[in-house]
């Protein structure tokens, strides 16, 4: 069972990295890097593996590349179910890849307690992989919490000026919303046990149940809020700018690149399939929240003077597209949402890395103190230009494919909301280009001499560049990978909601 091996490897690697600190301060990062690469290598064969396990998911066949189930606490119907379909596999791969980028991006930044830092980093990765691969609700909740605590330490210990405030805020927001989800999970399980006489946390047995419309709406909201806080969507986003801004570079990369995606993944995997009808009733509200996030995040991003804060608000804007795509209840928009998750992971991780690289060199994130950095660092300017252009949705790069498909699919569901969301293409250009101007263009009044990107930074950035080009020019492999999983979920949802929302395209 590869995914369990990978998680164990990351847990053990984390402990080793922590211990190795006492011998040499450089060992932890090498151990972390090697662990990450090894894990990725372990994952490789899965791409060539057929989806062998076919399980019934509320009447629809679901295809699993890996599936394993062990009994854990049988008295409460809790088991260890780890499973990977195309969607999970892609998210796990993204996690490991961005983990690699994150480790490289913090290569010289961390001097204090490097072992504990790498420990937290690897444990966050392991927790996230658990989230992407558990299909028992209790197990899922367990990993949902596991990934938070090391991330809290990363922000609270190695963060910038206001790290305590930011870490606390991050923790309270996610913990409170996690509590809502726990209540929702328990209600779902208990009511289901009441109705069917079987106490179970098993995803496959819970999908397709019917709680009755009133309760179902409440329970669904428990899941929904937990996930949109994580996403984050307006008006649940305020934790994000602080957490991103204060976190060390590696943690920002992980937060933006993958932790936000656990929210989107949760919506796709749990909220909508578990409560198709209830989700359909709030679809318009959710899409509207997405559209508001797009515009609101973009305007806020434009107003910021802190480079990392600008990128943070741009994440709110970009993840709005995911929310619109998921709740458009349309196969095209859903694929767009998944593509947006991957592409945003790449582009935002890179932008946070650039912000970190700049802060490392000039010791500020304040864009009013920057300007004209192109002269001193033309390579960094060119690379930043690439990622800014990707992030504003330039065709030929991954983000465009995601945003375009989301809007194309959403247009069939709701013209007004789509039209509002499309304004995000304009506001996105405004804040992206102003960032380019403030940081790299104009003239540098301080006439700084700075070292340009070095080979270590290129090692982390070039895969991201190639990845975004690949996603933009030939996204088909990603679609082919996630297609069976999304088709199943779409079938589950349309099967349950066909009477409610008529015939879907």
């Amino acid at each position: 069972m590869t995914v369990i091996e990978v998680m164990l490897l990351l847990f053990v690697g984390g402990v080793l990295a922590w211990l190795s600190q006492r011998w040499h301060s450089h060992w932890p990062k090498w151990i972390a890097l090697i662990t990450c690469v090894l894990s990725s290598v372990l994952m490789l064969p899965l791409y060539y593996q057929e989806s062998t396990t076919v399980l019934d998911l509320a009447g629809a066949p679901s295809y699993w590349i890996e599936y394993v189930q062990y009994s854990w606490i049988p008295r409460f119907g809790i088991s260890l179910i780890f499973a990977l379909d195309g969607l999970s596999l892609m998210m796990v791969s993204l996690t490991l890849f961005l983990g690699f980028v994150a480790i490289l991006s913090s290569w010289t930044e961390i001097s204090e307690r490097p072992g504990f830092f790498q420990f937290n980093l690897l444990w966050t990765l392991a927790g996230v992989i658990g989230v992407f691969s558990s299909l028992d609700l209790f197990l899922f909740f367990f990993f949902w919490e596991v990934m938070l605590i090391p991330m809290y330490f990363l922000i609270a210990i190695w963060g910038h000026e206001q790290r305590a405030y930011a870490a606390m805020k991050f923790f309270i927001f996610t913990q409170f919303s996690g509590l809502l989800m726990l209540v929702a999970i328990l209600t779902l399980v208990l009511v289901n046990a009441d109705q069917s006489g079987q106490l179970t946390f098993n995803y496959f047995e819970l999908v397709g149940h019917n709680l009755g419309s009133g309760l179902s709406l409440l329970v669904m909201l428990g899941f929904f809020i937990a996930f949109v806080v994580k996403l984050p969507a307006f008006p649940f986003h305020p934790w994000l700018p602080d957490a991103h801004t204060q976190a060390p570079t590696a943690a920002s990369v992980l937060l933006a690149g993958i932790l936000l995606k656990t929210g989107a993944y949760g919506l796709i995997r749990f909220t909508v399939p578990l409560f198709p009808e209830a989700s359909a009733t709030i679809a318009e509200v959710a899409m509207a929240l997405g559209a508001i996030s797009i515009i609101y995040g973009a305007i806020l991003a434009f107003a910021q003077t802190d480079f990392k804060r600008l990128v943070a608000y741009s994440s709110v804007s970009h993840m709005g597209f995911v929310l619109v795509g998921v709740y458009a209840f349309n196969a095209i928009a859903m694929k767009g949402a998944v593509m947006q998750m991957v592409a945003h992971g790449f582009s935002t991780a890179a932008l946070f890395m650039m912000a970190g690289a700049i802060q490392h060199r000039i010791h500020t994130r304040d864009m009013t103190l920057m300007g004209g950095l192109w002269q001193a660092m033309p390579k960094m300017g060119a690379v930043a230009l690439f990622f800014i252009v990707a992030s504003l949705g330039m065709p030929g790069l991954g983000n465009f494919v995601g945003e375009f498909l989301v809007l194309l699919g959403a247009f069939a569901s709701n013209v007004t909301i789509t039209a509002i969301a499309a304004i995000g293409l304009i506001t996105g250009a405004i804040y992206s280009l102003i960032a380019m101007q403030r940081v790299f263009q104009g003239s540098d009044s301080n006439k700084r001499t700075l070292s340009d990107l070095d080979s270590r930074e290129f090692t982390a950035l070039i895969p991201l560049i190639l990845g975004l080009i690949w996603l933009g020019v030939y996204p088909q492999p990603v679609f082919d990978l996630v297609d069976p999983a999304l088709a199943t979920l779409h079938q589950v949802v349309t099967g349950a909601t066909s009477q409610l929302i008529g015939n879907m395209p």
Partner: protein
Amino acid sequence: MADYVFLIPLMPLIGFLLLVGTLGKLPRLWVGLIGAGSIAIAFMLVVLTGLEYLGQADPTPYTVDIYTWMQLAGFTANVSFLIDGLSLTMLSVITGVGFLIHVYSALFMWQDKDYSRFFSYMNLFVAAMLLLVLADNLLVLFVGWEGVGLCSYLLVGFWHEENANGAAARKAFVVTRVGDTAMALGMFLLFVHLGTLDIQAMAAQATQIWQPGDLIVTIACLLLVGGAVGKSAQLPLQTWLPDAMAGPTPVSALIHAATMVTAGVYLIARTHELFLLAPAALLTVAVIGAITLLMAAFAAMAQTDIKRILAYSTISQIGYMFLALGVGAWSSAIFHLMTHAFFKALLFLAAGAVIYSLHHEHNIFRMGGLRKKLPVAFWSFVIGSAALAALPLTSGFYSKDLILLATYHHNAFGGWLLAAGMLGALLTAIYSFRLVFIVFFGEVKTQPDAAAGKLMSIPLMILSLLAIIGGWFTVPVESVFPVAAESDHTGLMPMIIAGVPILGVLLAYLIYLKPVIPISLFTQSALGKQLIAFWYSHWAMDWIYDRLLVKPYCAVAAINRKDIIDWFYNAVADVLRSAHQYSTISQSGQLRTYVAVIAAGLVLTLAVFLGILIP
């Protein structure tokens, strides 16, 4: 069937990749060779393709499939290239004129420290532009469409140390993106109803399901027009183009005169089957063209910057193309697109030669008498201006003549469109020769350096030739567009159309060279001063947009910089914190307080219970 068609956009793309990959470390000569050479190869491939296409007894359009970009259930985007008369015309203009401009740039930019960066952007631009005109799918076209927009941004802001250049570049990108967003919505609407974005399949499907004048197709076409007016700098999105002159002059020639800004015209021509189903949208195009061409012509009269005069003339000439599209004179629009590419590229490059010799002097009133010192630039300007003014026997005459005749025959709005076109033609002649007379005649005000080198002169000469004889070419687009009514060259109207530019040149002569007409009576009067300032600011459009959109957006952003939602959560935290503080007051450690509170509590509880038990 030319299987090598995919190489046409690939050549400049390879040039771009080579220049980027070498990180600006190549020697200048190599950079120039790669930059211009890749376009030269692309041009030769276009010529081969064209010869093969036109060599057939009955030229039939064909598509070359490249690969499947995306294939989802319900949505497929194929990258395939369409070769027909329209795309071949565009390809020839882009690679032909593009090559000449690259050669010219090789010398013009020689001194620049970012020589390699310049050519990488230019090559990327040509690649994107070629993709735009080759695409047989609206989404693939959109890739090129946004790509040229990006390159326009990069090249307008090429000298990015100047903040003003960056602002101009951002303005160009954002304003066109407004149009692009409308265009994207148009694509969504078309896709939802037609189920495909392949242009030919869309056309076939549209004529099946829609009747002329149906609401949906009209809205879809108007949204596409939104994209077109953004890219082609037409009302109401034309404000970015004059500012875009901040870029190097060859950029203005290539992007902001010959190729990219005509993409909107191309888009409407390419989707003309849809527009034929939407007569209202088509009429809107004509009206937009007519108003824009007049507005820009007036603005050009008032400018003093040599490049801005040319920029407004470009807006005005594209207005003519829109007018032509709107009245259904499809091939005339494309014909004018081609001749305009020749003479406007010529004018910009000649202006570049003047600016180059005068050390970046842009103000025409600080120039003068350059006729003797810069003969090549002078003759280029005379020929270019003659073609721009549409004097008989120049290329511009043939194309503009067709447009005005078609407008005359079209008859919408009782002749107002024609009147706008005629007045515009008169003004064009006046402002273009105003430029010639002020810059090249009279006394010398700034001594020029030596004239530009041969590498810059040869493209000027070739373009001069094209600006004269370009009118004798025919664009091979008969098979693309519906057959237009044979335009009637008899009667008084053709004579008037030919006469108006001559009258304009004569007026310019009498005003600026032999001051017979006392123009100062007007320009020095209070009303005249205000009007000229008004036209100088292009009818105050920037001012209006600034007040209406830019300032409010910035104000909203500034007010909410701290995020009002965050304030709400902080308020919750504050309430909890003060509740905590107040409740800690009770924990005083004083026994007598505790006893008193317990006693009071007991009494209160007792009272409540008694109140319930004994009503």
